């Protein structure tokens, strides 16, 4: 247990929403607690790392750092997306420094040990001396790339760093069932449909803000004319996921009234419905009839995060101008949230702040997340 974080303060979090307090300040301000959460919350769960569109073609390789761990996304020869530790098994050298296409083998730039895109070690040049490429002490079959447990859902690459999480389909069975209608092909909108936002905030604050609709009238006043507070509903599944939905989604229209094509075979609920749910711990998802989005929150430190935003459509080709309009609109909405998440981060420096309180009517989704985080830490402490 991190020093100076008595368990009873987390007991205060794990109360009903009416009386619960939020997580203590240290969970936003203390690098040691950030380190604890790296293990207890992020590494032990299915954390979002990237999207499959980051490696769209066979042979694509992209280095990605997650919690300081050097990782490598690869789409192998069979088209499967894999995640490896981005290091050579020889001396730990970084294998791939920049995104590139692997034409044949992944060759380490240091001593040229070569790996297949499936992670097998296929060549160890001069390992037995100049011109001798084998040595009895070096068994290539046990020196392949270290693969990180990964799962693809909603075009998102989830990873379980410590290998202890139950299967993804088991952990997220309820959410998969809730959004089963969206289990169909979705197409990344391309370069103009992704952007990043650097935020001076702990990643959890971005989740907490995303979960609730309570702030919409004040922070996103542009919604007030057509998506009032009363048109939104809470989504609270304790121990699983949370978020909010809208009953009045309006399709974006372009010139001549053009709209995006709808996802196939959706029920009537989605004619004017939208849902916005966090896949704990760090992936924010949104679904509407004609497009979806994925936000992967990259925790960089206790007070810095990067939001990787990607927009997806029901068809491979969509109207370019409309796509750009949609990306600009969503970017504008997410930028409106920056001052509140950064403000909450700054506020956590106030000594003695008790973590705050939750509106039972409006903050249930946020409390649900706090409760989940507290539960993960308690479970980790039990194991240690």
């Amino acid at each position, binding site marked *: 247990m991190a020093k100076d974080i008595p368990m009873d303060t987390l007991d205060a979090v794990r109360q009903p929403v009416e009386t619960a307090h939020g997580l203590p300040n240290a969970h936003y301000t203390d690098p040691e607690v950030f380190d604890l959460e790296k293990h207890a919350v992020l590494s032990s769960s299915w954390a979002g790392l990237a999207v499959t569109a980051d490696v769209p073609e066979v042979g694509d390789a992209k280095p990605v750092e997650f919690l300081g761990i050097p990782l490598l996304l690869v789409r192998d020869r069979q088209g499967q997306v894999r995640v490896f530790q981005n290091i050579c098994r020889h001396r730990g050298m970084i294998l791939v420094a920049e995104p590139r296409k692997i034409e044949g083998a992944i060759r380490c730039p240091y001593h040229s040990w070569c790996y297949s895109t499936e992670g097998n070690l296929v060549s160890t040049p001069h390992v037995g001396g100049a*011109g001798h490429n084998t040595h009895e002490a070096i068994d290539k079959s046990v020196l392949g790339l270290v693969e990180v447990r990964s799962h693809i859902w909603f075009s998102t690459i989830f990873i379980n760093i410590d290998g202890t999480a139950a299967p993804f389909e088991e952990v997220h069975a309820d959410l998969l069932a809730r959004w089963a209608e969206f289990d169909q092909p979705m197409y990344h909108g391309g370069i103009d449909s992704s952007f990043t936002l650097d935020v001076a905030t702990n990643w959890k604050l971005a989740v907490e803000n995303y979960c609730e609709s309570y702030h919409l009238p004040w922070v996103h006043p542009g919604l007030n004319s057509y998506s009032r507070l009363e048109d939104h509903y809470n989504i609270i599944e304790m121990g699983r996921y949370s978020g909010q939905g809208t009953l009045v989604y309006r399709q974006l229209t372009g010139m001549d009234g053009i709209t995006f094509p709808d996802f196939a075979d959706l029920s009537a609920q989605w004619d004017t419905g939208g849902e916005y749910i966090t896949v704990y711990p760090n992936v924010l998802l949104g679904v509407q009839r004609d497009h979806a989005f994925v936000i992967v929150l990259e925790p960089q430190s206790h007070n810095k995060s990067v939001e990787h935003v990607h927009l997806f459509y029901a068809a491979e080709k969509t109207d370019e101008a409309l796509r750009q309009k949609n990306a600009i609109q969503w970017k504008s909405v997410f930028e409106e949230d920056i001052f509140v998440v950064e403000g909450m981060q700054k506020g956590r420096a106030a000594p003695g702040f008790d973590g705050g309180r939750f509106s039972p009517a409006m903050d249930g989704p946020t409390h649900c997340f706090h409760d989940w985080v507290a539960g993960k830490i308690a479970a980790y402490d039990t194991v240690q």
Partner: protein
Amino acid sequence: MITLDDRLLDAHARDDRTGLIALYAEAADTAQDIDAACFYLTHAYVFALEKDDPATEVLYQRLKAEGRV
């Protein structure tokens, strides 16, 4: 006169890995002894592996024939 060594260094400078496959194979073909030949063949083979070059298998078999893989 431009030597093979000059051409190798030039290919390295330009990071011409396809060119390096053929040049290292040429170095192997003109080496004075089998150890030197296998050294150069190894380089040719590794660059061929990296590029998925058609010469990969032939180079591998040459090394295998000498017991070097």
